[in-house]
């Protein structure tokens, strides 16, 4: 008789009956989390970074390894490296040191994490995710922990602990939802960011992050698109726009002397449905006659360095100011992107503003309306929904929202612009002006309490689909609610990762709902000068009620 | 009773007497319980618990007047303005009842009422003129079935079991005024203002407490005088005055349950009325009209 391969993990019949019939709840007899070893499961983590990714950025210890292997091929002195890195970061980040010290484990954050909600894995509670690091902090950096050990909640940094770190640090999308509810503002995202820096000291990145940073560093964008391909791609959009609207837009690239540099995540240029949003930008700029240029060098808004380390983030981000300075633009316009805007809002000025010294950059002013963007005075970068909302407010766009009448739209507040910036009203204002049917999701799922798409912070790979689906479940559930209640069939968002992750999530949980960027809807609603009669939208889909007129 | 309690304390070894033992006591041979008692120092069984289990703590003084049911008989025909004034004055003085001019804030324990208000059921137009105008002395009726007691949320007002007097425990009154609403005779007054301000220091009776702002008060049938073997102040004053005037006593106080008492005889020989008997509170003040 053929044997069943062991890796199948087929349960025995006895095991099966056990699964169904559980005894009464044990009260306090369960094993403590410190003694529950991590079990790395497929579908719940991303593949390890390929060694070649580490070359351009000189990331340490590139090697061929896999999380499922017993041996992670760590350097011999890995403990010293991690502990030294830990200490170094304790001295450099007050956030980190403070967050290691003051948590009282009140549990306010426990059920706020979308991964915990969707999976029920207790180690996905933000407090416990942070405790994974805190326990090691206590053991190695506090007297009480050194003396009392597990009594003080301290434990040694062992290989199992490191694996546990890695597994759960890459199950956090750094969305900061827990931080909103924490009485001390402990930001688990901050802890995850630093924890991931530590894993990177040992070359333990995931490929979905390592590849984009590597590509971005060399080619300017995550996809590794070389300049000519980038231009080709946009040209392709130009043709499609002409096809659908009858108007030929003329974008320019790397053009010196332009007034505005436009930077958007490359996801918008190369992945559906972001591409339609990119076409939306093109239409908008053309219609306004904006003196704007795209750059192939700074062709990426997103910054996976945020998910890798501070230094990498800075290296990738520097291209924005460097390019703005080289081209002599007055200010930068940023496309719809999530973590790009967290970096721009919270890190860019601090990290790289010195690069812009001596450039022609000045406080952004909309050339169309004359509005000064005072809130971008220092960083000199304006969010495109701020820009468009201002245009609409000043009636500078000819809009026919009824062209979007077949859409019933809801808006997904992307984590980063929400809790790292506070961009709530601008996108809603734009949506409400370009379509007639807008329904917000319930209040505990939007704005500062918004749920993550489940694939943020570099976790939008294909191999961790189960993780993404679990994490996205609360979001999908809320969309399903408005879908059933209001017939919502379009989920708008202002984040390229959302546009990559949410379609999969919707396909699984709410198949009737599609995903769009806001500027796709803006462009669809715009009455263009010299346009032909519109029968299709930017996706080439026929507009209901208009197809016959042709 | 008190002696028993002391014994209990000693036997259980829970008194603190041992702690305070003087050197002389130390010299004496002490029993094991007292020794333990001493060693335990601050660790005694809480006095609060004793308090809980050992009410009452004292005993009734020997000279006290006692009865099963105190009643008062008022002979309306014998009362004149002078008697009313004297009774009111003495009552209010010894009980530190403030004299407040503002009728809204007025406090009264005993007062003069019109016949038609005092006995509304017995009133008609053609009643004896003299009766109509006669001063009519009223006070708390110390009802057998007091509505005020039933409504009090803190049991601040209560009926004394052994003699039927309805009393107020000012320590407990929270000023909710349910009792005032419940009392059909308007016998209760609420201290809207601090009463001490309205009692001249030289007129204070230092042996009787005043009240504070925010409590209800009323006639107590001079419970504090009964304890000392004295009859209520108004009765005493009235009887003296009546004697001077050569009248029968207008106020008589006594035990209704005692067949030989003066009140029983009066009630047998006279036709008496009580205020609002139809309400079923069963008042203990009787009027001879």
């Amino acid at each position, binding site marked *: 008789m053929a044997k069943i391969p062991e890796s199948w993990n087929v349960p025995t019949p006895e095991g099966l009956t056990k699964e*169904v019939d559980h005894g009464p709840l044990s009260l306090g007899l369960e094993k403590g989390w410190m003694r529950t070893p991590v079990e790395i499961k497929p579908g719940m983590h991303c593949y390890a970074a390929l060694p070649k990714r580490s*070359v351009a950025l000189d990331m340490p210890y590139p090697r061929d390894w896999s999380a499922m292997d017993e041996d992670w091929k760590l350097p011999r002195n890995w403990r010293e490296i991690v502990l030294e890195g830990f200490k170094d970061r304790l001295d450099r980040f007050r956030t980190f040191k403070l967050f290691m010290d003051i948590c009282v484990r009140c549990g306010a954050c426990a059920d706020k994490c979308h991964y915990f909600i*969707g999976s029920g894995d207790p180690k996905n509670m933000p407090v416990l995710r942070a405790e994974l690091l805190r326990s090691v902090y206590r053991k190695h950096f506090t007297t009480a922990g050194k003396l009392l050990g597990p009594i003080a909640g301290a434990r040694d940094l062992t290989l199992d602990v490191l694996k546990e770190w890695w597994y759960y640090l890459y199950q956090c999308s750094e969305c900061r939802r827990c931080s909103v509810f924490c009485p001390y503002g402990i930001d688990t995202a901050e802890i995850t960011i630093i924890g991931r820096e530590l894993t990177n000291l040992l070359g333990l990145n995931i490929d*979905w992050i390592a590849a984009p940073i590597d590509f971005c560093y060399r080619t300017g964008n995550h996809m590794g698109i070389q300049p000519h391909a980038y231009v080709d791609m946009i040209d392709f959009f130009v043709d499609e726009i002409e096809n659908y609207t009858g108007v030929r837009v003329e974008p320019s690239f790397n053009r010196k002397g332009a007034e505005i540099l436009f930077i958007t995540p490359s996801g918008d240029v*190369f992945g559906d449905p972001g591409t339609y949003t990119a076409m939306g930008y093109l239409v908008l700029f053309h219609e306004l006659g904006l003196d704007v240029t795209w750059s192939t060098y700074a062709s990426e808004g997103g910054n996976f360095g945020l998910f890798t380390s501070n230094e990498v983030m800075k290296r990738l981000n520097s291209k924005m100011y460097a390019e703005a300075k080289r081209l002599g633009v007055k200010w930068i316009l940023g496309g719809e992107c999530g973590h790009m805007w967290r970096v721009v809002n919270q890190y860019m000025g601090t990290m790289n503003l010195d690069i812009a010294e001596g450039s022609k950059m000045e406080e952004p002013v909309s050339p169309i309306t004359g509005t000064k963007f005072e809130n971008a005075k220092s960083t000199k970068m304006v969010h495109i929904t701020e820009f468009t909302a201002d245009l609409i407010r000043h009636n500078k766009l000819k809009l026919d929202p009824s062209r979007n009448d077949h859409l019933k739209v809801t808006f997904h507040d992307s984590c980063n612009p929400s809790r790292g910036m506070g961009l709530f009203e601008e996108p809603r204002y734009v949506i409400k002006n370009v379509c007639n049917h807008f329904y917000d999701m319930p209040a505990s799922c939007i704005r500062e309490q918004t749920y993550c798409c489940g694939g943020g912070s570099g976790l939008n790979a294909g*191999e961790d689909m189960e993780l993404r689906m679990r994490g996205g479940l609360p979001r999908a559930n809320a969309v399903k609610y408005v879908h059933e209640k209001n017939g919502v069939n379009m989920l708008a968002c202002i984040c390229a990762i959302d546009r990559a992750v949410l379609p999969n999530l919707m396909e699984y949980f709410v198949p009737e709902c599609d995903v769009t960027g806001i500027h796709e809807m803006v462009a669809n609603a715009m009455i263009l000068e010299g346009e032909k009669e519109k029968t299709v939208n930017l996706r080439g889909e026929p507009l209901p009620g208009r197809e016959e007129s042709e | 009773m008190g002696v028993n309690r002391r014994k209990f304390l000693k036997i259980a070894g829970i008194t603190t007497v041992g702690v305070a033992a003087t050197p002389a006591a130390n010299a004496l041979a002490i029993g094991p319980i007292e020794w333990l008692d001493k060693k335990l120092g601050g660790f005694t069984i809480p006095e609060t618990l004793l308090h809980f289990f050992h009410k009452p703590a004292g005993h009734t003084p020997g000279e006290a007047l006692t009865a099963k049911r105190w009643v008062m008989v008022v002979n309306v025909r014998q009362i004149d303005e002078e008697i009313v004034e004297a009774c009111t004055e003495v009552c209010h003085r010894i009980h530190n009842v403030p004299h407040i001019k503002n009728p809204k804030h007025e406090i009264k324990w005993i007062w003069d009422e019109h016949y038609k208000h005092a006995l509304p059921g017995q009133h008609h137009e053609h009643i004896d003129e003299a009766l109509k105008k006669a001063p009519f002395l009223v006070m708390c009726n110390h009802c057998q079935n007091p509505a005020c007691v039933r409504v009090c949320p803190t049991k601040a007002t209560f009926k004394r079991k052994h003699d039927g007097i309805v009393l107020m425990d000012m320590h407990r009154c929270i000023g909710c005024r349910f009792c005032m609403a419940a009392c059909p005779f308007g016998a209760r007054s609420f201290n809207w203002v601090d009463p001490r301000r309205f009692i001249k220091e030289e007129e204070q009776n230092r042996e009787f407490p005043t009240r504070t702002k925010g409590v209800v008060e009323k006639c107590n049938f001079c419970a504090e005088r009964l304890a000392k073997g004295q009859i209520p102040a108004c009765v005493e004053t009235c009887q003296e005055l009546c004697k001077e005037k050569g009248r029968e006593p207008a106020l008589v106080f006594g035990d209704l349950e005692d067949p030989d008492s003066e009140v029983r005889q009066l009630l047998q020989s006279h036709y008496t009325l009580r205020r609002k008997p139809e309400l079923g509170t069963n008042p203990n003040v009787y009027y001879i009209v």
Partner: protein
Amino acid sequence: MSLKNLLLQKRSPIVKKWCDVVLRTYPEQSQSFLKKKDPFGNPVGCTIAEAIESIYDELLQGTESDNIPLFFDSIMRVRAIQDFSPSQAVGFVFGLKKVIRKELGSEILKEGISEEWAAFESRIDGLALLCFDIYSKCRQKIFDIRVHQVKNQSHRLLKMAGLAYDLPEDYESPGYEGDLKEGQVNKHES
């Protein structure tokens, strides 16, 4: 009394216990959370509770309703992406038998309706098979999405084949001569 009436009578304890059977397949630490009645804060628990109740009601209706697959779908869609082996994911259906036996065992014997019960049991078995079908479809969907994602991401690029940038085979970092294993192609490429 017929089995149906008994089942109706004991509806709420049976539904509650069946729900508990499902919830007990989750880690103990999250069970109390899963019982919270907050459809947005606790979508998993609420979906399960709602669907279990509806399935039970439909089951009592007797007629093979079209709705049962829908309710199972809402549960299985969640469980298919969670940490369960297929047997664990589907096993809760059989739990209903055990729950009913515990609640009504003696009554079934007393009333002499064991034949009716046997028929009901085989209906539950049927439900389990249905549930397994749905589970498989959900898993299939996940794999479809996975494939779709890879296709979708490169679909524009494929239109202009050959333009994607990748490392040259012989690329070597100037300062670093580590044990790079070139040519090792991962299953995944962004």
